[in-house]
Structures are given as structure tokens and as C-alpha cells.
């Protein structure tokens, strides 16, 4: 009696969790895609993270 209650509850919460996740998975994850794009573009263009705003310019210019 008690056991069947618990497992029914577990099944229901699993189902609701699962439906939430399916929703996440069907819709395009725009924020995650943007993050992934930024990472790849930084790599391809060899951009540095804008961490040191006060960094002095390099003494030797290559261009």
C-alpha cells in the first residue's frame, strides 16, 4: 500500500522531470549556442579574453 504510493509518486515526478527536459531539448538552446559560438570564434580568430583592460600595448607591432 505504502510502497505503491511511493513508486507512483516517483513515476509521476520522473515523468514531469522528463517532460521538462524534453522541452529543453526540443527548443533551440540559444544561450548555450551563443556561448559555444563565442568559444569557437575566440579560438579561430585567436582573440584574447578581455581580461586586462590596463595592459600596456606590446612594444613590437607586427603590422
Amino acid at each position, binding site marked *: 500500500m505504502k510502497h505503491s504510493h511511493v513508486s507512483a509518486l516517483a513515476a509521476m515526478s520522473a515523468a514531469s*522531470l*522528463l517532460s521538462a527536459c524534453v522541452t529543453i531539448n526540443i527548443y533551440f538552446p540559444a544561450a*548555450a*549556442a*551563443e556561448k*559555444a*559560438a563565442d568559444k569557437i570564434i*575566440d579560438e579561430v580568430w585567436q582573440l584574447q579574453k578581455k581580461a586586462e583592460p590596463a595592459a600596456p600595448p606590446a612594444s613590437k607591432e607586427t603590422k
Partner: protein
Amino acid sequence: MRSAFAFLLLAFSALVMAQGNLEVNTPAISQVKSAMTSRHAQLAPHYASGALGLARDATVQVRDANAIPLAQRGAVQSAVAAENSDRATLYREIAKANGNPAWEADIRATFAQRWIDKAQPGWWVQNAQGAWVKK
């Protein structure tokens, strides 16, 4: 039996939810990424000269072939073609790696915006109306 099934469901949903990031580490993606990284050295001066621009469809386009020295023109044009083919592969492979090939167009659109946003000042980019503007 039923609780075992419920547990399986729970475990599976937790797995799906753990993916807050897109999968971008596959051999195919790494390969195009490294090809694009080494090609960038060849293309960069031509972004700066205005010969090449970043198009709103997430490709590179030759805006002004005359701005490329004649001796390099053919090579740069082939590099642009190779770049666009690699970019198409990149968008397709990211969609595939995340189990949703249908996301390719969304991924391309995301990249289009981010390439343009990250372009350096002085580079040419295509605005939403299709006109070329200098950043």
C-alpha cells in the same frame, strides 16, 4: 519493477538536463576549427582592407576583389571558398553532435551574429538589410 523503471526515467532525465552546454568537442569539429584557425592568418589582412566582409548568412564574402593584389587574388578567392565550406561543415557538425540536425540553421544564425559582433573595428560586416557597413 515499477520503481526500477521510475529510477531509470529519473536517471535519464538527469542526464539530459546536465547538458547546459552544447557539445562542440568532436573530431570533425576540431578538424574544421584548426583548418579555420590556420586560414585566418591569410584572410585577416583582407578583412582589414575591406576586400572581404562578414556576411549576415555567417559566411565570408569577397566584397571588393580589386582591393586584393592581383598576384594574391586567386589564392584569396580559393581560401574564401574553403572557409565557407568549413563553416558550413562546422554548423552542420555542431547540430549533429547535439543530436539535432535541424538546429543547423539556428546555429548558423547564432554564428552570423557573433562573427559580426566580434569583428574588429575597420572590418566590413553586412547589416540586417544586406548592406555592407564598416565597423
